[in-house]
């Protein structure tokens, strides 16, 4: 458990607070002092982080997700550089297995000519998987290490931050809009939104229905991943409240089950991305 016997609620909320760098507004009362002007600073508490509002950035989420993304790019690019048509060995085997898996899935779902979708799906799958994988690092290890280095908040699983999952989902959403308009034209896309499922006389109803359906795609992508990982992380945190000699009883089965969940969630995110883009291409 963290620190010198904090209360259970403090412990949990500490673990769920991001390391936030943001702007506190002028007149904000901080540690008894009133700020004279707006100030960019690292939040000292969950309340301060929340009060920073939109003008803030989660340093821990950014660090870990970029670190993991770079790890993905570096290792896969190394394998790609060494890739030959000869007999593959070691890490190249693994990379080719993942690439082949993604390629098969994309080919079975997406039947148009597009050389972005498959690498996009690969990036989503591996990046999300690596982010989720951080969930299997025991919940206190990295935060305690960070505390020794003087960093008081450290949330190591980027996919438990809705900003990270929503960032990806917004990216996918922009691609959906781009390809919808590219394939069907602005008019075609608008017609698709306006003239179905009911005939023309129900245009407002159609528009409402289709736009909700469209917006639901990125929101469901973001919240599904976020919700699953947040809940999983929460269970790990709660398990770590037990006496240390009992924790393995619950944490081991949950971790093993979680291996399935993190892979499945990464796969679902990647596959839904491909499905949505295939839908953007198809004429309805």
């Amino acid at each position: 458990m963290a620190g010198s016997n904090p209360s259970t609620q403090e412990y949990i909320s500490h673990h769920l607070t991001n390391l936030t760098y943001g702007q506190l507004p002028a007149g904000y009362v901080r540690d008894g002092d009133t700020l004279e002007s707006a100030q960019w600073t690292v939040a000292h508490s969950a309340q301060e982080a929340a009060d920073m509002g939109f003008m803030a950035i989660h340093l821990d989420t950014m660090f870990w997700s970029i670190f993991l993304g770079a790890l993905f790019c570096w290792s896969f690019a190394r394998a790609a550089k060494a890739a030959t048509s000869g007999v593959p060995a070691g890490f190249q085997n693994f990379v080719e297995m993942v690439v082949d898996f993604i390629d098969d899935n994309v080919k079975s779902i997406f039947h148009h000519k597009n050389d972005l979708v498959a690498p996009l799906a690969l990036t989503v799958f591996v990046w999300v998987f690596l982010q989720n994988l951080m969930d299997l690092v025991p919940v206190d290890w990295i935060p305690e290490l960070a505390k020794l280095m003087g960093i008081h908040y450290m949330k190591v699983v980027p996919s438990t931050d809705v900003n990270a999952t929503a960032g990806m989902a917004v990216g996918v959403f922009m691609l959906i809009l781009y390809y919808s308009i590219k394939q069907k034209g602005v008019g075609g896309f608008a017609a698709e939104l306006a003239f179905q499922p009911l005939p023309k006389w129900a245009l407002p109803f159609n528009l409402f229905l289709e736009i909700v359906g469209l917006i639901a795609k990125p929101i469901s992508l973001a919240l599904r991943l976020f919700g699953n990982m947040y809940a999983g992380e929460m269970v790990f945190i709660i398990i770590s409240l037990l006496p240390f000699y009992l924790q393995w009883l619950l944490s081991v089965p949950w971790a093993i089950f979680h291996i399935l969940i993190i892979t499945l969630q990464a796969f679902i995110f990647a596959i839904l991305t491909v499905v949505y883009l295939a839908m953007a291409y198809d004429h309805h």
Partner: protein
Amino acid sequence: MNINLTLFAQLISFAIFVWFCKTYVWPPIISAMQERQKQIADGLNAAEKAGQDLEVAHQKIDAQLVEAKAQASQILDQANKRAAQIVDEAKEAALTEGQRLKDAAQSDIEQEVNRAKEQLRAQVASLALIGAEKVLEASVDEAAHKDIVNKLAANL
């Protein structure tokens, strides 16, 4: 669950990672895999073709073997025939030669007999003359009675 600038920062890093993957990771891996797939397919095709070639070669070998056997037996037949012919000829020649030798020997013998007869005849004539001389005690005139004696000798 604070929505803030992190979302846009994540969006940007996501775009960068996707771009990187699309540019540097995906194409070389996929092309290597496709090339390997092609090589394996080519290899399998080559193996299949080699198998077919082998089959053809086996058939050719079988045909040549049959032909060679036929030729061999033909040559053997001819050789046998020729051998029999040579033996026949030799036999013929031997018989002819034997006959010739026999004839020559016969004629030699006959000549010898004749010569012996001549000698005998001559000797008999002289012996008869000597005998007659002895009997007649030189009363016979050799010149006068020579004809008679010769006649006698010729009748022997």
